[in-house]
C-alpha cells in the first residue's frame, strides 16, 4: 500500500519536473484550455443562475393567468369575465391586471407599463426601473413625456426608482396609475389586460384551468408552471446557441491538444526510451503521461472555472450578457446570486478533461511501448 503510494508520488514528482522543463509548451496549452473552460463555464453559470433568478421571481406570479384571444392575438379582457370566473369552485382570488408596452422614441427602447395591484402611484406620477432611469438619466422629480393614444403629450413625474436587487424583471418597468395607463394605452375603462387567478389547492390547478377554458372559450389559460418551462426553454436555447458557437472553440482546442500534448517530439520519445531502458514499465510511462495530462487539464479546468465564476458573479458577465440577458435595449444590470449546479460542472468536466485525456493517452501509449533498446542504437 505504502509502496504503491510512494510509486505514485515519485512518478508524480518526476512528472512535475517534466512539465516545468517544457514550460512554454505546457503554458500555451494550459492557457487555451483555461480559455475554453472559462467560456463554457461562463455560459453555463450565467444561464443557470439567471434561470434560477427568474424562477424565484416568478414564484410570486399568479398561479393562473387568463388572456383573451382575438384572431389568435392577445386582446383586452372585459371586466365581466371576472364575475364568470369568480364562482368556479376552488378559485380563491381574482383580479384584473393592467399592463402593456410603450416604445420611447427618445431612447429607442420599450418600457413595460404596469398598474400595480396595490399602492399604485398617484395620477401624474410614476415609479421606474433602473434601466429606464439610466436610459433617460432621470433624477427623482424629473418629468418624462409619454404620448397618449389620442396623440397628446402626458408628462409624468418620476418619483421613485426600483432597487437593483430586482433588476432582472424591473429594469424596463414603469409603474403608473390606472388612469394614466388607460390614457397612454387607449384602453377602455371596462377592460383589463389579463386576469390573474389564485387557486386554493394547487392540485386543483388543472381542473380550474379547464373549467375557465370551457366557460370562456375565447381565452387562453396559462399556468405559472408553463411560464417557468418557457423561461427554461428560452434560456436553455440561448445558452445552447452560445455553446454551439463555442463548439468551434472546443474543436480548435481539441486539435491543439492533440498537436501539443500528443505530438511527442524526438526528444520526448528518446526520454521514454531511456526511462524504459533504466527499468520503467509501459504502465509507469503511462502513469507519468496520465499525471502530466491531469496536471495540465485539472489546473486549467479549475482555473477556468474560477475565472468564469468571477466573470459571471462579480464582473457582470460582460462577455455574454447582451446575448443571454434579453432582447430589450434596456439590458438589466444586476449581480446574479452565485448558483452552481454540480451536475453541470460534472458535465463540463467530462466535456473538457475527458476529450483531452483521450487526445493524449493513445499517442502516449504508442510512445511508451517503444522498445527500450532503441536508446542503445
Amino acid at each position, binding site marked *: 500500500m505504502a509502496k*504503491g503510494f510512494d510509486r505514485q508520488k515519485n512518478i508524480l514528482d518526476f512528472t512535475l*519536473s517534466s512539465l516545468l522543463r*517544457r514550460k512554454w509548451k505546457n503554458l500555451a496549452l494550459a492557457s487555451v484550455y483555461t480559455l475554453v473552460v472559462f467560456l463554457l463555464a461562463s455560459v453555463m453559470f450565467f444561464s443557470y443562475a439567471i434561470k434560477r433568478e427568474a424562477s424565484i421571481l416568478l414564484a410570486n406570479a399568479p398561479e393562473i393567468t387568463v388572456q383573451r384571444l382575438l384572431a389568435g392575438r392577445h386582446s383586452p379582457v372585459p371586466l365581466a369575465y371576472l364575475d364568470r370566473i369568480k364562482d368556479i369552485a376552488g378559485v380563491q382570488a381574482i383580479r384584473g391586471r393592467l399592463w402593456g408596452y410603450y416604445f420611447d422614441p427618445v431612447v429607442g427602447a420599450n418600457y413595460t407599463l404596469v398598474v400595480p395591484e396595490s399602492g399604485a402611484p398617484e395620477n401624474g406620477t410614476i415609479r421606474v426601473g433602473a434601466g429606464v432611469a439610466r436610459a433617460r438619466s432621470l433624477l427623482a422629480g424629473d418629468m418624462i413625456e409619454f404620448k397618449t393614444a389620442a396623440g397628446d403629450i402626458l408628462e409624468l413625474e418620476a418619483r421613485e426608482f426600483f432597487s437593483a436587487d430586482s433588476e432582472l424583471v424591473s429594469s424596463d418597468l414603469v409603474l403608473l396609475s390606472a388612469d394614466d395607463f388607460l390614457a397612454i394605452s387607449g384602453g377602455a375603462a371596462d377592460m383589463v389586460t389579463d386576469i390573474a387567478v389564485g387557486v386554493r389547492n394547487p392540485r386543483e390547478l388543472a381542473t380550474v384551468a379547464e373549467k375557465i377554458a370551457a366557460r370562456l372559450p375565447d381565452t387562453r389559460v396559462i399556468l405559472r408552471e408553463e411560464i417557468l418551462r418557457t423561461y427554461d426553454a428560452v434560456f436553455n436555447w440561448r445558452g445552447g446557441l452560445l455553446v454551439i458557437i463555442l463548439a468551434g472553440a472546443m474543436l480548435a482546442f481539441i486539435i491543439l491538444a492533440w498537436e501539443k500534448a500528443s505530438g511527442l517530439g524526438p526528444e520526448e520519445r528518446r526520454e521514454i526510451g531511456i526511462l524504459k531502458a*533504466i*527499468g520503467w*514499465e509501459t504502465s509507469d510511462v503511462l502513469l507519468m503521461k496520465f499525471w502530466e495530462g491531469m496536471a495540465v487539464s485539472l489546473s486549467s479546468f479549475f482555473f477556468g472555472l474560477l475565472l468564469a465564476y468571477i466573470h459571471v458573479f462579480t464582473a457582470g458577465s460582460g462577455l455574454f450578457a447582451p446575448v443571454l440577458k434579453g432582447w430589450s435595449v434596456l439590458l438589466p444590470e444586476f449581480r446574479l446570486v452565485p448558483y452552481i449546479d454540480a451536475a453541470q460542472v460534472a458535465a463540463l468536466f467530462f466535456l473538457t478533461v475527458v476529450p483531452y485525456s483521450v487526445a493524449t493517452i493513445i499517442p502516449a501509449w504508442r510512445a511508451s511501448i517503444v522498445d527500450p*533498446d532503441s*536508446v*542503445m542504437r
Partner: protein
Amino acid sequence: MLIELRDVRKVFHQGKPNEFVAVQGVNLWIEACRATVIKGPSGSGKTTLLSLVGCMTRPTSGRIEILGREVSSLPERFLTGVRRETFGFIFQHFNLVKGITALENVMLPAYPSGENHAALKRRALDLLDHFAVAAKAQSKVEKLSGGEAQRVTIARALINDPFVIVADEPTAHLDTRLAQEFMETMARLKEQRKTILIASHDPIVCDSPIVDRVVLIRDGRVEGEAR
C-alpha cells in the same frame, strides 16, 4: 553461472526487404563477479548482444537464462522487473534525461519501485558523493562535463544495487585520462562483487588488467576469446 545464452539469434525487420540479422547462433556464458568484455568492430552486433543480455529486447530465437531462470519468453512486465533488479546500464551517449538535475537522474530508475522518496534521495546523494559529484547534485545534467556526466551515469546504474553492470562503449566519448578513471571505477565495483559486462573495442578497456575475459564477435557471431 550468472547468464547463459544458447543459440541466440536476433533478426531486425524480419520478413521485410530490409531484414537484418544482428546476432546469429550465439552461445555465451557470463560468470558472476567477473569482468567480461565483448570486443568487435562497429556493426559486429556488440550492442545488440548487450541488449539481449540486459533484457532490453527479446531474441528472435534461442534461450537466455539469468541465474537459471529462462527470461527470453517473459512478458514485458516481468522482463522489466528482471532488468531493473539485475542490471545497471551505462550507455555510450550517457543517455541522461535533460532538463532535470543530476540527483533526479540518479533517482529515476528507482521511482517505479515505490521506495520512499526521502530514503531514495539519501541513497542517490550517497552515490553521487561516492563518485565525487555530490557538488553537482542540483546541477542540470546538460551543464556537466563529460567526466561528470559519466560518473552520474554510473551512479544511476547503481541506484537499484544491481548484480550486473552493463556498459556499451563507455569510453567512446572520453579522453584517455577519463577512460582510465572509468576502468578504475569498474575495478572497484568488481571488488564489490559486481559482474561487469562491457562492449568495447577500446584498447584501454580490452587490455585493462581488471578484465578477466574478452569475447571476440564479428558479423553477429562469437569468433572466440582473446583472454
